[in-house]
């Protein structure tokens, strides 16, 4: 609750900071301060300090998992603001408003990670989505950005409509929005519940861009300004996954066996389409869009198996994936050329950045000693423990092998091809922060228990 109230308030503070000062550096410092406040207040709530004593009527439940996830997300946003804050300023004129919208998204993220009624799920998903439609179109002079924004808005509101219809059907069958009531009484699939379940499944699959609901993703991620693509592909996608698993764990665990196969097929299709299409991309930005689809496929393993281990795995995967992708995008948005050729010779001209980028790519590909390896390992092991889904695990491993090709193309371009020196605007702070992020990824890869034990530390 701390973070929810504070992020809403800080959004308003960001709006006023634009009136009080016209110096963008001050605005950036205020934003970084805000995210530190959010992070600290969430950690304090983990330790039992609550600032606000509202009577929530059981609509939001802030348990250890959701608070820990929020802390991970706020930490990633802190890294994101520090790495890409300067690039947000280059998008357009209304920088304080962009920050305000980002803070409102964070308010939605805290709701999506801790809702206990379908009403709150809907509000959270909407608060996440609406600012994103605007941020996607914030580069107003760019036609591609406008197109992406319109496309995202139309498709997004259609999927929200599906979600509402699913909620209405479930409410009609159970006469309650509360997940505890729904989960407690859904012991078999009656027609109305199954229709509602399917509609909810489709709309959530759309929000996490799982196949066959992924068609908007490449266009939107490609068209949106790079800094906001980074935010959408990491923070928002992870939050949508947490909402997804919370919804299906809370509401439909008893009938898990009946819908497991559908989710398994969606997972296999997501892995297959995401990886195969990513191989053929020429632009690294578009490749990362498809890579985010394929990473979503791996996170879908958590929904397929739905156990306690799935929660641990998803938390860990979210941290590993967000850190690596934020790092890659932070480098990418400072480059002029988004194709693979743009990376040619980077190893010679910018050795520090190239080294950090290599770590990020290795982590995304899932090479041992990086966090990405342990994350994929966790996901595959929860799927194996769930039993009878060995075919899905085999597809997952094959697709992980395919993904190595397109991630390593970047590494190959950086070290084994010669190219002109590209101007990348960097200071020592940027390089240091990239180094810290890369180091943190390796640290998480070697000591995965450090993060996962936290789940059971605060009780």
């Amino acid at each position, binding site marked *: 609750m701390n973070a929810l109230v504070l992020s809403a308030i800080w959004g308003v503070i960001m709006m006023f900071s634009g009136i009080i000062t016209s110096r963008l550096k001050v605005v950036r410092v205020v934003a970084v301060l805000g995210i530190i406040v959010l992070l600290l207040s969430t950690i304090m709530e983990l330790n039992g300090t609550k600032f606000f004593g509202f009577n929530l009527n059981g609509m939001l439940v802030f348990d250890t998992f959701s608070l820990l996830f929020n802390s991970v997300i706020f930490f990633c946003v802190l890294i994101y603001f520090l790495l890409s804050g300067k690039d947000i300023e280059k998008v357009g004129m209304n920088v304080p408003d962009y920050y305000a919208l980002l803070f409102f998204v964070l308010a939605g993220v805290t709701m999506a990670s801790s809702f206990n009624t379908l009403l709150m799920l809907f509000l959270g998903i909407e608060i996440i989505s609406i600012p994103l439609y*605007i941020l996607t179109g914030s580069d107003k002079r760019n036609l591609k950005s406008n197109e992406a924004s319109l496309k995202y808005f139309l498709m997004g509101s259609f999927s929200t409509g599906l979600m509402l219809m699913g909620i209405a059907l479930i409410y009609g069958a159970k006469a309650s929005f509360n997940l505890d009531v729904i989960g407690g009484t859904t012991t078999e699939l009656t027609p109305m519940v199954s229709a509602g379940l399917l509609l909810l499944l489709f709309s959530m699959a759309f929000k996490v861009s799982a196949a066959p609901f992924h068609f908007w993703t490449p266009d939107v991620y490609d068209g949106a300004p790079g800094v906001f693509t980074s935010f959408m592909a990491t923070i928002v996608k992870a939050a949508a996954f947490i909402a997804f698993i919370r919804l299906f764990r809370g509401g439909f665990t008893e009938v898990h066996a009946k819908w497991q196969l559908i989710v398994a097929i969606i997972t296999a299709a997501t892995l297959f389409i995401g990886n195969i299409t990513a191989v053929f991309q020429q632009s690294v930005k578009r490749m990362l869009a498809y890579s985010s689809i394929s990473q979503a496929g791996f996170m879908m393993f958590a929904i397929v198996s739905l156990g306690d281990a799935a929660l641990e795995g998803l938390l860990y995967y979210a941290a590993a994936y967000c850190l690596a992708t934020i790092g890659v995008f932070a480098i990418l948005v400072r480059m002029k050329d988004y194709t693979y050729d743009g990376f040619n010779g980077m190893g010679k001209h910018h050795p520090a950045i190239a080294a950090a980028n290599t770590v990020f790519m290795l982590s995304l590909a899932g090479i041992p000693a990086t966090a990405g390896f342990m994350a994929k390992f966790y996901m595959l092991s929860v799927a194996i423990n769930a039993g009878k889904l060995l075919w899905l695990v085999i597809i997952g491993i094959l697709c992980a092998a395919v993904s190595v090709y397109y991630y390593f193309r970047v590494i190959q371009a950086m070290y084994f091809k010669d190219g002109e020196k590209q101007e990348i605007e960097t200071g020592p702070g940027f390089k240091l922060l990239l180094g810290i992020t890369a180091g943190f990824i390796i640290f998480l890869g070697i000591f995965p228990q450090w993060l996962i034990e936290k789940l059971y530390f605060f009780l």
Partner: protein
Amino acid sequence: MNVSDILFYFLSALAIGSAILVVISRSPIYSVLWLIVTFFAISGHYIMMNAQFLGIVNLIVYAGAIMVLFLFVIMLINLNTDAKPQKGKWLRLAGTVAGGCLLLVLVAALKNTEVKGMGVQVGTGDIGLINQLGKALFTEYVVPFEISSILFLSAMVGAVVIGKK
């Protein structure tokens, strides 16, 4: 079959029929007008379920304000009937098949549903009255009510960001 049943079936048929006409009308103006009819039919349902306040608000906000905006926008961009983009034959066929499949699945699923044979329950609930609604909104549902202000605030900020030069 008493009066409320007849009214229920009439309003339901009106809502579904006009909703279909919204989709298949060639001119956007007709689509908007049929949409207004749909809203009226749904408001009729609300009023039958003793939710007068919701019924009237639905009329004022949707049929009144939003539809007038729709009509203005359509008039401003001056859409002619022949300006409609022609879709390919295969695309239309694929759309029909996909939509038909969804309809088939939904009808097959909801054919045996738990509320089968239940018409409208006239005058049973009182949550749609302004008194009860206000009480529910400001006691039990006060947190989501306040949180929705974040949603509207972000939409307003967004409108300014998009609208400003």
